[in-house]
């Protein structure tokens, strides 16, 4: 690397080909996914969009590997200044805030439906005409087990799988924390053990989530298109599940790096980022568990 730095000066990263590769990949993904969805909607056949989509995903994965490799390399060489470390941390925390806001959109939809639109369709508080003229047979309730147009579904209880999943995720947050403590105490064994446990718990959570979906589709007639209850249920838990998947992959990468001897108690940004992300995913689940399942 060409730059020499005394301790006073700033570190400015080198040029990198990865961002533009990533941008192009994102373009392929968007184009591919967009045309695929449109084509399936029209003819039921995905057409050429599928190929573009897959190409995009492959390039994105390659890009991520390349980018992270460079990044890890530079970090291991001690090229990152302390300031850059702070920047990364702050960047990660604001990124998590933006994720929170993304979930807020769907929580907002959930609250709107529960508190406003469903009761309005049932005639509350001064929408008697809506009820009388348009939906005379509809009774407002939550979970919405019968939609205004008559689709019927059952609600997902909170005591079975969901409760187990909650416990799993809560435990995983604790194990994650223990791994972190291990790192700080320079106890690599503890770190490895608890990180492995976290990954395991995350995977079990995902597996159980899949079982729950199968149960919903097969036994409860609770589907993605079963009205606003199913919509909010699947989008909230679905996006959460996607985040758990990403978080788990993230943790697996971290675990691999731990095995390679990476991270020290004063240089472990990636570890911290993964751990923050994991805690965030956990907190979102708590919100979900309370507002989607229990109440």
């Amino acid at each position, binding site marked *: 690397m060409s730059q020499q730095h005394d301790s006073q000066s700033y570190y400015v990263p080198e040029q990198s080909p990865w961002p533009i590769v990533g941008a192009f990949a994102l373009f392929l993904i968007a184009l591919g996914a967009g045309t695929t969805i449109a084509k399936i909607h029209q003819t039921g056949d995905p057409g050429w969009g599928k190929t573009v989509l897959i190409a995009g995903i492959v390039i994105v994965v390659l890009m991520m590997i390349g980018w992270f490799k460079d990044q890890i390399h530079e970090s291991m060489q001690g090229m990152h200044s302390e300031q850059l470390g702070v920047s990364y941390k702050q960047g990660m925390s*604001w990124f998590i805030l*933006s994720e929170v806001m993304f979930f807020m959109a769907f929580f907002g939809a959930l609250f709107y439906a529960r508190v406003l639109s469903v009761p309005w369709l049932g005639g509350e508080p001064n929408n008697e005409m809506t009820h009388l003229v348009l939906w005379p047979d509809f009774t407002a309730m939550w979970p919405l087990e019968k939609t205004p147009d008559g689709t019927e579904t059952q609600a997902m209880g909170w005591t079975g799988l969901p409760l187990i999943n909650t416990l799993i995720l809560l435990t995983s947050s604790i194990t994650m924390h223990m791994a972190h403590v291990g790192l700080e105490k320079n106890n690599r064994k503890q770190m490895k053990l608890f990180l492995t446990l976290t990954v395991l718990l995350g995977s079990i959570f995902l597996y159980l989530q899949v079982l729950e979906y199968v149960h919903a589709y097969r036994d409860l007639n609770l589907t993605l298109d079963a009205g606003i209850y199913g919509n909010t249920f699947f989008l909230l838990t679905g996006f959460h599940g996607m985040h758990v998947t990403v978080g788990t992959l993230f943790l697996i990468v971290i675990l691999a790096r731990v095995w390679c001897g990476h991270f020290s108690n004063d240089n472990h940004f990636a570890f911290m980022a993964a751990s923050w992300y994991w805690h965030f995913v956990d907190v979102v689940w708590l919100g979900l568990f309370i507002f989607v399942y229990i109440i």
Partner: protein
Amino acid sequence: MTTLTENPNVAATADTHHGPAKGLKRWLYTTNHKDIGSLYLWFAFIMFLIGGAMAMVIRAELFQPGLQIVDPHFFNQMTTVHGLIMVFGAVMPAFTGLANWMIPMMIGAPDMALPRMNNFSFWILPFAFLILIMTLFMEGGGPAFGWTFYAPLSTTYSSDTTALFVFSVHIMGISSIMGAINVIVTIWNMRAPGMTWMKMPLFVWTWFITAFLLIAVMPVLAGAVTMVLTDKFFGTSFFDAAGGGDPVMFQHIFWFFGHPEVYIMILPAFGVISAIVPTFARKPLFGYASMVYATASIALLSFVVWAHHMFTTGMPLFGELFFMYCTMLISVPTGVKVFNWVATLWRGSISFEVPMLFALAFIVLFTIGGFSGLMLAITPVDFQYHDTYFVVAHFHYVLVTGAVFSIIAAAYYWLPKWTGVMYDVTLAKAHFWCSLISVNLLFFPMHFVGLAGMPRRIPDYSLQFADFNQWISIGGFAFGLSQLIFLALLIKACRKQGKPVDAKVWDGAEGLEWEVASPAPYHTFSTPPKIK
């Protein structure tokens, strides 16, 4: 506010060890905030021309009553894509470009905090707009449901290219969020020692607050388009009463994003004006602290006024009153800003260089737009204004003579710093006067047309509106042509045709950016400057 006690001696050392790479790679791979700033600015300008060309199609169709040039379906695509391109492709990237160029220089940082992400957040934008524009040429056409894409027009009743529209908006959102994170982290973490919060230039402050708005609301937009996607293609019924949803819910989610969005487009403009006015009044900005507080209050209030776009949707009375009062309140901090600028001018030593001309035009014309905004906020009267050209007049005053004028002013203010040469001032003055006259001919009569009852988003109108629309269209063409002067000027300046300028281009200017050489060296502060 901020002065250097020591010259950091930047120009001499910076270029020696790490100059720009050569050729295309420089731009594709760059991690340099100035390169990325330039990319953003040029991209924004090209988008402005494309979006403007669409506006010309609109104005040409509306030149006379009757359908002449385009069919209504295509007309709707033009208004929609015009709005989307101008908002997401022109104004927002232009401000991000300014942020990239100026924030590191203003706070004494060597670059943005996360340079590679910076490159990524730029380069995904052209692709997003490529997708958006491609849809115009596909079967079914591009988005035709307005830039606000109200469901169910954008779901059940839209063409299948809506999927591409949704993904392109996702990418725009990702870009904005990453850009915003970069800005926040840069400001928080990269300030030179001694650059305390209350010494930061207002442009930095306004962008700081804007970045928080972006992080808070762009994900909500992403959520909204995602629900549109699932409603259209995957059978959900978020916006469909038959499944327990509500089309009005879409509007709540959209405007929860949309209203802060309009302040995202104006707060950095306030920062620009707060930089330019003191320079050419040769007097410190009046009420620096209150400017900061006013910006913050506008940002906070912007989260609780969204439903003023929805007064006619049949909200409960209580909601209408709440949103009316909150909206009206925004006039107070905004007024503080206007008054502060005027007080800065008062007993200054004023001269009228081109950036100042645009800044002064901004103050007057933005305020006019603000007044019509206040009128729109009055719920019972909004029932008459809503979805008429009165609204179109309002938002073009705040957006074109507000946001866009401030961007042009910023360009004229900092261009010599960027290129190292003074641009062609004669052309610049011609650009100003042509723009000023034509823009008012373009947008002022829209108030009357709106009050007389002409709805927006219509390709054809009844005969009474004919004469006014003709004048509006003429104003539109003239304003469009005036921008070509700007294009010529920019090309000349970027080719460095003009007199070289000193580090301190304007005699009244203050701030770190004026301490470094012109053109600003590729790497500005490789060691932190000292600030008193």
